[in-house]
């Protein structure tokens, strides 16, 4: 049965409204300040460390993202891994149930638009807001790096850093889609936020440790060491944080040759410690990048289907 008119009619209006909501909300300002402060702390530590231990590294600039210094336990990247989900969840957890609870949903949906436009518009506005913040943060880091290190990044370093930015946006997309899914499933924003945060903690902190334990518990006793390691790795990749970590490793650490176990055959003829070309690094990380994007789409579509079947009455 064919519906008349475009499913995306009114999309632009919804996106603009949601954007202005996001950009003026107190919630967004708090989250942004949190991000900026954490980023500056991590960056400051990295710069100190790099200055103290200047090595003949052809990718010194990328070290900005991946170096930590005591007493701060985290690098710029590891802090993004933790905080980006928090911001994304903070923006999406009341996307749909908030409209329900304000009783605005049926009024808005009685205007000549489809539900598709409302949901997609909310997602796009959220992703756009996240992108703006991440791009601003990225520029800040590059700028400060230039200023404090006094060293211009090479073309390849910029390219790697840029792809890293895009991947971070995709990573944010996964969590935004997840938060919106919960905002559709749960009528109470508090429940949706709590479940999303719980899942975030579980996937980011507990799952990497749990995955090998699960494999050991369920693998037949005859399995080889290699099978166990591979199985644990596949399992741990269910966590978006893990996927993101692996992509970042391949991108920002050009000497990375593989994200799985290294076989002797792969080392034959290899110059250890020699950087991979950008194309090769991309190929190494490609499955993980696709995984992040696919995860976003899957979560969004699941939410979309549930939303289409949901009753609008409060």
């Amino acid at each position, binding site marked *: *049965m*064919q*519906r*008349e*008119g475009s499913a995306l*009619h*009114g999309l632009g*209006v*919804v996106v603009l*409204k949601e954007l202005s909501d996001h950009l003026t909300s107190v919630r967004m300002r708090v989250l942004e300040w949190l991000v900026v402060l954490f980023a500056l702390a991590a960056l400051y530590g990295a710069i100190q460390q790099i200055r103290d231990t200047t090595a003949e590294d052809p990718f010194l600039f990328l070290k900005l993202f991946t170096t930590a210094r005591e007493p701060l336990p985290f690098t710029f990247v590891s802090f993004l891994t933790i905080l980006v989900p928090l911001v994304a969840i903070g923006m999406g957890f009341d996307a749909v149930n908030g409209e329900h609870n*304000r*009783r*605005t949903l*049926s*009024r*808005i*949906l*009685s*205007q*000549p*638009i*489809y539900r598709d436009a409302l949901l997609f518009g909310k997602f796009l506005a959220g992703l756009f807001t996240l992108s703006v913040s991440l791009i601003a943060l990225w520029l800040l880091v590059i700028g400060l790096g230039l200023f404090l290190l006094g060293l211009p990044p090479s073309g390849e370093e910029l390219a790697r850093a840029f792809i890293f930015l895009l991947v971070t946006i995709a990573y944010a997309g996964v969590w935004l889609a997840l938060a919106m899914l919960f905002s559709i499933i749960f009528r109470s924003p508090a429940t949706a936020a709590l479940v999303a945060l719980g899942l975030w903690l579980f996937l980011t902190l507990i799952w990497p440790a749990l995955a090998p334990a699960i494999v050991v518990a369920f693998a037949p006793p005859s399995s080889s060491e290699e099978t166990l390691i591979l199985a644990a790795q596949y399992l741990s990749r269910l966590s978006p944080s893990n996927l993101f970590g692996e992509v970042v490793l391949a991108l920002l650490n050009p000497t990375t040759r593989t994200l799985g176990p290294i076989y002797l055959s792969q080392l034959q003829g290899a110059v250890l410690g020699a950087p991979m070309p950008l194309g090769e690094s991309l190929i190494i990380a490609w499955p993980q990048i696709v995984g992040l994007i696919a995860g976003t789409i899957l979560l969004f579509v699941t939410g979309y289907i549930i939303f289409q079947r949901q*009753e*609008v*009455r*409060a």
Partner: protein
Amino acid sequence: MSADNVIEAQGLTKRYDEATVVKGISFSVARGEIFGLLGPNGAGKTTTILMLLGLSEISDGQARVLGFDPVREPLAVKRRVGYLPDQVGFYDNLSASDNLRYTARLMGLEREERERKIATALTHVGLGEVMDRPVDTFSRGMRQRLGLAEILMKEAQIAILDEPTSGLDPQATAELLHIIRNLKDRGVSVLLSSHLLDRVQSICDRVALFNQGNIALLGTVGELGRQVLGVGYYVDVEAEGQGLAEKLRSVPGVKSVETPSANHMRIYAERDVRSDAAAAVIAAGGRLLRLSVETPSLDMIYNRYFENVMGGRHAA
């Protein structure tokens, strides 16, 4: 469909997994008429409304709104129909005019037209002076009026109002009913649902009485009165005298006479029998103190109907 009907429903049914909440109802709303869907909460009124708007799937049966099928052409329906949901909500942080601006843009109005229509609509419902205030300072009644302003701005041909007066104080109710009557004067057809009968009676041309997913009764209030009570009028007589009730019972057109208190008699009749009743009282040597005629109220019809249904008896 008949050219003069703006809404037609035939065998409209809504089934959920566990229950059928609307059981094959049929009704139509004529152009320019105020039609009331009445009944207790949970009788299926809101579900019926949502199906007509294409916001809820129709399990069975057919609906036509202005000749469009809400299932296949929901946008065409929603472009022409204004909807005021039960306990309408707005974005509290935005001003009244900003709230309307958002929906106006969803309707696709251009800037100039938009601003003009927003100002006119808000002034019309008496919110012109507070249009730049955030909605969270608004009372229930103001929110309902803002909802009606949205329908005015849309220049809808049909206004569907779900429980427009519930939770309002008498004055706010009166103001709202006044605006709804104005809608009718502008040629807008109105479909409204309510469980507050006496208020609704005053403005509805025809009503449908819902009971557990069925339309139990349908027609003008007078018709319903004749169906349920068997009469179109009742006359209250206060008089002193002996055997007056007997005399009144024999007046032509009188169906029955009740005596709620010693000198008070209530006559149920097919027509206005005041003069005959007065003559009968005088002829019997009684002293007539008061005489008044009324059409049966919806409340009365409603209560009597449900008494009959619950008691397992059939209406007269």
